[in-house]
């Protein structure tokens, strides 16, 4: 969290992390498409020719002033494909909170778990304790017929006390709720740390 007293801004960095094709970019695209233009910037996507994220997507949004300060939220995604693993750590640098976007389908369970391990590794390498990071799990693609039950996903991916949310990002279900949850988690964490 960066508080810029001169510009009267509070900046938060939120990173959407998860395996390939789990819906990270779709979350940002939905937010971008639904928010009023005056509340958001451009959606920047660094993609391959095959339309896959190679480095990150970026979207800044803001809400109305609070106590004379304008909150600004910088949302990033990481590339899900394993071949771009090196880029993920770079995007995580300086993150205030992480949303893990899991693919709920049975056959993606292993990919989700491997990706969760890579997240923990990357956080440790950056000097963070993964258990102390404001964190939300979004179980996406809940509309698909081959989805695993939440109990199974929680048993494999869940962490003690880490909130989760079910979503269908292509239709926007759960997308804004996820964002609200992670922002609140970050603010609560900051209060704990400085209180």
């Amino acid at each position: 969290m960066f508080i810029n007293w001169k510009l009267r801004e509070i900046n938060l960095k939120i990173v959407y992390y998860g395996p390939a094709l789990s819906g990270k970019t779709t979350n940002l695209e939905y937010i971008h498409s639904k928010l009023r233009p005056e509340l958001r910037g451009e959606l920047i996507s660094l993609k391959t020719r095959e339309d896959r994220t190679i480095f990150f997507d970026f979207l800044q949004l803001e809400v109305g002033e609070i106590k004379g300060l304008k909150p600004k939220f910088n949302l990033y995604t990481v590339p899900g494909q394993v071949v771009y693993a090196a880029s993920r750590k770079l995007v995580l640098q300086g993150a205030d909170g992480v949303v893990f976007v899991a693919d709920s389908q049975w056959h993606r369970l292993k990919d989700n778990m491997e990706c969760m391990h890579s997240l923990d590794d990357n956080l440790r390498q950056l000097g963070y304790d993964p258990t102390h990071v404001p964190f939300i799990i979004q179980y996406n693609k809940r509309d698909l017929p081959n989805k695993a039950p939440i109990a199974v996903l929680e048993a494999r991916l869940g962490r003690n006390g880490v909130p989760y949310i079910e979503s269908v990002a292509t239709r926007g279900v759960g997308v804004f709720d996820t964002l609200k949850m992670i922002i609140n988690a970050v603010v609560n964490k900051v209060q704990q740390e400085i209180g």
Partner: protein
Amino acid sequence: MTGVFFLPTQPLDEVEQHLSRLYDKTGATCVLLINISGQLLSYQGSAEGVDLASLAALVASDMAAVLEIARLVDERDQFKLLLHEGENHNVLISNVGPGFLLAVIFKTSVPIGLVRLFTRETVTQLLEAVKGFEAPGSRVAQIVDAEFTASLASELERAFSDRT
């Protein structure tokens, strides 16, 4: 995680003066100070029509990728400067210590050597100025209090309502 950084007005005024001098001396289009997580702290110059938040995020990622390349090829001293040469504009990005980046966007008619020279001088000045940044203290506790949390929740509600 959740490092909290409070940027008081006084060091930011100093930063602004240094950026302003660099802007004047080089005739740059725009100069920006960014932190390594991609947040814009201060800028000088013409920014009309430019999405500065996106620019800051891209500059920080650009440098992050180059530092990772340095690590992979065992360049122990790391790369401190990045130059992109274009048809109409050049972009010079320089480290300001481990936590900040200075980006100078300038027309190709401006000599690169001149920009490098004054950028180096400005980096030294900025290193002093940014020392005043990392002191959150009690002022942050006064800002991010229960009232802030409640107001933020209702602002988020207002911004996101009827959007799903």
